[in-house]
């Protein structure tokens, strides 16, 4: 089988995007996108609907030409090339399987055109079917398969011509939750085995966090942050990223000296200053699961006395809405089931919580994010 190897010696830039702009009338869908994807990498474009992630993918594929900027695939400038002259395979949310062709004919669709000998096509198709876990299904028509199976056929079809770049446009969004989980693992496994450079568009942060080597978070046509899932989650570059990936509490305050912020009259220590000058207005962010509850004494750093106002049962954990005297914005904290049992937390209870300085993030004030509430 002619499958790209994942030998690190051939690892080079597989995709290079520079200064990409795309407008639809007055709406700017892409605003100066620069991006490099290394060979063999799995990259996710993540963002809310309308952020430009699909537009970027379609520009890379050549399906919607950009207004400005350049695209290189595998070292070849394809900025003005039609899709048929770019080296990629694509899978769509709708599967886009040809309904009147059998599964085998669908997979062989791109091979037949290359004048590959028939016997070779047959072996290639059966090995691809085995690869996606659908051996012996070649004679069926797409309508006879389940959604997840159809998407796997679409994946096999896209891989059949051994493209250097695999593009996945929300491939899991049309599937049931359970099938989605299963296919997620399968795609990751396949990608790792074949080492094909892959770009997946998704609006599902969990998908991006679990599958990608690197995540490109987009909003309003610009890239907000590029980083590994861990970086994106632990050190979000902007309030938007912090809020879109995972949940975060935000408080408006001021950085009054290096390592200290104040909001609503409370001073807290904070490790993340990011070069803000003392006196700058900032937003302070903290993930709910970072709120410390066990063994907090009133003398600890950033210890606050809080009242449990609401408890929302979420299954594996409880999300508590905590009221702090003098602060209008509630503080949300995630308590594990285990902690709930140990501390027997109840509504109306007063507890001491601590905000770990290393977990607090500061962002420029006034930056747009969805759940911003004035303190």
């Amino acid at each position, binding site marked *: 089988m002619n499958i790209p190897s994942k030998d690190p010696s051939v690892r080079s830039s597989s995709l290079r995007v520079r200064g990409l702009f795309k407008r639809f009338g007055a709406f700017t869908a892409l605003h100066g996108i620069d991006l490099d994807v290394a060979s063999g990498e799995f990259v996710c474009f993540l963002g809310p609907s309308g952020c430009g992630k699909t537009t970027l993918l379609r520009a890379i594929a*050549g399906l919607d030409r950009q207004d400005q900027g350049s695209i290189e695939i595998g070292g070849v400038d394809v900025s003005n090339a039609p899709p048929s002259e770019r080296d990629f395979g694509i899978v769509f949310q709708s599967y886009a399987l040809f309904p009147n062709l059998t599964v085998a004919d669908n997979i062989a669709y791109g091979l037949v055109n290359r004048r590959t000998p028939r016997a070779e096509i047959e072996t290639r198709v059966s090995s691809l079917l085995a690869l996606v876990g659908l051996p012996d299904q070649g004679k069926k028509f797409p309508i006879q398969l389940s959604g997840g199976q159809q998407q796997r056929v679409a994946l096999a079809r896209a891989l059949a011509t051994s493209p250097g770049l695999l593009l996945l446009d929300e491939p899991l969004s049309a599937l049931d939750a359970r099938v989605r989980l299963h296919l997620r693992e399968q795609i990751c496994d396949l990608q790792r085995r074949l080492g094909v450079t892959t770009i997946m568009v998704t609006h599902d942060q969990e998908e991006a966090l679990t599958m990608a080597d690197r995540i490109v978070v987009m909003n309003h046509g610009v890239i907000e942050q590029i980083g590994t899932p861990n970086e994106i989650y632990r050190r979000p570059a902007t309030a938007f990223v912090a809020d879109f990936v995972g949940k975060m509490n935000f408080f408006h305050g001021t950085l009054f000296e290096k390592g200290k912020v104040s909001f609503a009259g409370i001073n807290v220590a904070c490790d993340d200053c990011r070069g803000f000058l003392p006196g700058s207005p900032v937003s302070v962010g903290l993930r709910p699961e970072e709120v410390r509850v066990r063994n907090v004494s009133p003398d600890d750093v950033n210890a606050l006395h809080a009242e449990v106002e609401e408890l929302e049962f979420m299954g594996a954990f409880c999300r508590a809405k905590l009221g702090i005297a003098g602060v209008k914005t509630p503080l949300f904290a995630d308590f594990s089931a285990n902690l709930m049992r140990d501390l027997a937390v109840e509504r109306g209870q007063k507890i001491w919580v601590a905000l770990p300085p290393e977990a607090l993030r500061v962002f420029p004030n006034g930056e747009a994010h969805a759940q911003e509430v004035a303190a």
Partner: protein
Amino acid sequence: MSIAASPEHATAVAARPARRLLSEERIANGLLLVLCLALVVGIVLPLWALLSKAFLNAAGQFVGLANFGAYFSNPILMDSLFNSVWVAVLSTAIVIPLAFTYAYALTRTCMPAKPFFYALALLPLFAPSLMSALSLVYIFGNQGFAKGLLFGHSIYGPIGIVISQVTYTFPHAMLILVTALSISDGRLYEVADALGTPKRRIFFTVTLPGARYGLISAAFVVFTLVITDFGIPKVIGGQFNVLATDVYRAVVGQQNFEMGAVVGMILLVPAILAFVVDRATNRRQVALLSARAVPYQPKPSSRRDLGFTAYCLFVGLLLAVALGIAIWASFIKYWPYNLSLTLNNYNFQRYEPMGWAPYFTSLQMAALTAIIGTAIIFTGAYLIEKTQASPVMRAFAHFLAMMPVAVPGLVLGLGYIFFFNAPWNPLNFLYATLAILVINTVTHFYTVSHITCLTALKQIDREFEAVSASLKVPFWRTFRRVTVPICMPAILDVAVYMFVNALTTVSAVIFLYGAGTKLASISIVHMDEAGFIAGAAAMATLLVGTAIGVKALHIVLDRFVFGRLQAWRQR
């Protein structure tokens, strides 16, 4: 970034176009250009020829509005205008309530045998418009058995025209109204019911407003059909002049092309108006239905269902009689004195020198129109809807494809004479050939077929072309292997529609046939003109039989043969 200025980038760009002279995009653009040119020749230039003719005198000099002045100061011609309008208004006023009730029965009741009633109402579509006029002549004409029922009035005139027009336009109105009434949100009725609204009030506050766009659209379509129809007033109009017969007389009788062009332009007005209204209402009609609407499911109610069944039976019977009498009479020896059956009337040699030839010419013309027309229209719709060809050209081609429906057949035919018969036109060798009849008929019925194809194409996943491109498969291969097989039902629908209409049309082709290319529908007009009504009825019967036969064949094939080829549609 300095990449754009790097030398390797420059060579890559320079090298690419040389690599593929015939890229897919160029081929798509080329095909689209051919389509645009064909449509310009087929519809724009003839219309332009007609418009310019209306402002020229017989010597070809520009005379401004003089022709219009002459027209509007001629009391006889003004009479025709007035006659046309009031006959069309009256026919519309009669047919809309009739068709609405019929459509209501089909969509909102639990009447039995709905497919039968649906098919019954569509019967007139398979006949030339003048067929019901022939029947009326047999019933109420000078030798009609029910002549007395008219109390001394003559069927030759407005009475005959209106009755025939109602029959002819009924299926057109019914189809529009069935569509309008099936677009309904069942939840609205449940809410109205839950609020204790009386049935009458539900009808006036929910049903009627929901169908109002359909009603408006149907009214305009019927009005236009009536005012531009030529066959019916020709057969049963008698001394009662209308615009359509004026055009025919001016052009064929008096060779007064300028006056013909003026009347043609007047006929264009209601047609364009109807087109604009239909487009506007269509958009709103669709907007009425939200994505979450649940279709209305009528509940059985024996009294109501019985009443509507009786009504539909009555109306359907009238339609059947309107066609059936002519069919029956075509087998009668000597109406109404000797009612024994005979096939003598089918010996056309007795009535017209060409004998059976027009029938075979019609078959040939209809077959060519169906095959060539469907191929062009479907490919054109594909290029417009699915390819990456130039957006400007795609929009222009779509605009051109939508034009023919706004041009009545008579006007299109006139435009064709003016354009294709012009001595300066290198295409004038086409005049009076079978080719021009085919071109004219394809153009005449282009829009409806185009919309059918577009609708079918829009239902296909729009990413098929993207997937093919990523697999380096050219679009024409996907077109042949995937798009055409998937759209086969729509393609067959269009082909049958083209065939039936090519068979029954009179208005456009009456100006274009030549000695060797006389069509059956024209032969009917001629036989009727010469007083051979039995021959006319026989030829009309042949056409109806053929049209219905083809439709039946289509249904049978669709169900039993193509069903097997389309195994991929079933789970």
